[in-house]
């Protein structure tokens, strides 16, 4: 499958901006990953690193399920989506069903009480950037590394230096795979502009073999 085909499949996944402003929670920084970014992340994970096909994949903070569904399309052996918001999980379950992706969902507060031991091969996530709650982006990375040895994530490019330092502290290898534009569509009532671009890094973390 080509990248553009994956992206066009993912266009039919319902996102937060389509759910409507009353369904989203600003404190959770619920912004959907665009089909474009999700396709890029998961395509790279599979065709550059072989981290998707036949792997067990965790979509951490899955929202409406975009990244997990992308992994399902590229042949992940099993995909679990985890989110604190049961409304988002219902939307994600509908998305997975209409895309014919067999995916399980768990309602769990990733930041406060993780319920996943290290058992997955690959984590995919687009965590909160930490604009509402400082440091939550780093908490998500720590949780992800508890769940799997390989993690793909997106972060504001402005936090790159900080994350490189964190990775060194944790003793994991970090690679910035790409710098991309995250087009955030108007999701919340306070959004005046129709959409807004944020520079994001697509990163890969890999635990070193001990």
């Amino acid at each position, binding site marked *: 499958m080509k990248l553009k085909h994956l992206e066009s499949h993912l266009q039919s996944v319902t996102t937060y901006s389509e759910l409507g402003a009353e369904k989203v929670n600003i404190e959770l920084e619920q912004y959907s990953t665009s089909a474009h970014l999700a396709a890029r992340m998961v395509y790279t994970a599979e065709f550059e690193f072989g981290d998707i096909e036949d792997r067990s994949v965790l979509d951490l903070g899955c929202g409406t399920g975009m990244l997990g569904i992308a992994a399902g399309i590229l042949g992940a052996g*099993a995909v679990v989506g985890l989110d604190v918001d049961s409304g988002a999980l219902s939307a994600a379950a509908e998305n997975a069903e209409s895309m014919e992706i067999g995916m399980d969902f*768990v309602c769990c507060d990733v930041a406060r009480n993780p319920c996943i031991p290290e058992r997955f091969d690959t984590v995919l996530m687009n965590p909160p950037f930490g604009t509402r709650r400082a440091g939550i982006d780093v908490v998500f990375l720590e949780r992800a590394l508890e769940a799997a040895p390989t993690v793909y994530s997106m972060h504001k490019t402005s936090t790159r230096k900080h994350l490189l330092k964190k990775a060194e502290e944790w003793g994991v290898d970090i690679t910035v795979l790409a710098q991309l534009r995250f087009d955030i569509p108007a999701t919340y009532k306070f959004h005046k502009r129709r959409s807004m671009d944020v520079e994001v890094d697509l990163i890969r973390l890999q635990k070193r073999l001990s």
Partner: protein
Amino acid sequence: MRLITHNMLKSNIKGVESGYPLGIEVVKMEEQELEFNPDFIRNMLAKLEWDAFRAAATALEAGGELPEEVTEEMKGDEEVLRRVHHALMEVHLVEGELVCPETGRKFPVRQGVPNMLLHEDEI
């Protein structure tokens, strides 16, 4: 929720030591056919907590003939791999409870989604 997911979940209530594996109380289950992927099942054999999986399969009455332990021969035995596939990937707990093995706290499973959220005094 399939048993592969159950195998990866634990109770994380404050003070609980391992919180694993979670017991299962079944109200409603269903089976959904899924394409058999022997490579994936072989990979998972190395990662599964086998005893937890067998106990869960028994609770869902899906694992009467699963071997007692994982062996090298199993990986080449398609018949056994298919049974593992069925119990692991095709049996869904739709309604019921997951039970913390240490505290007895029940986590509800509704419409296939376990709710692992804790109350304030459990964190």
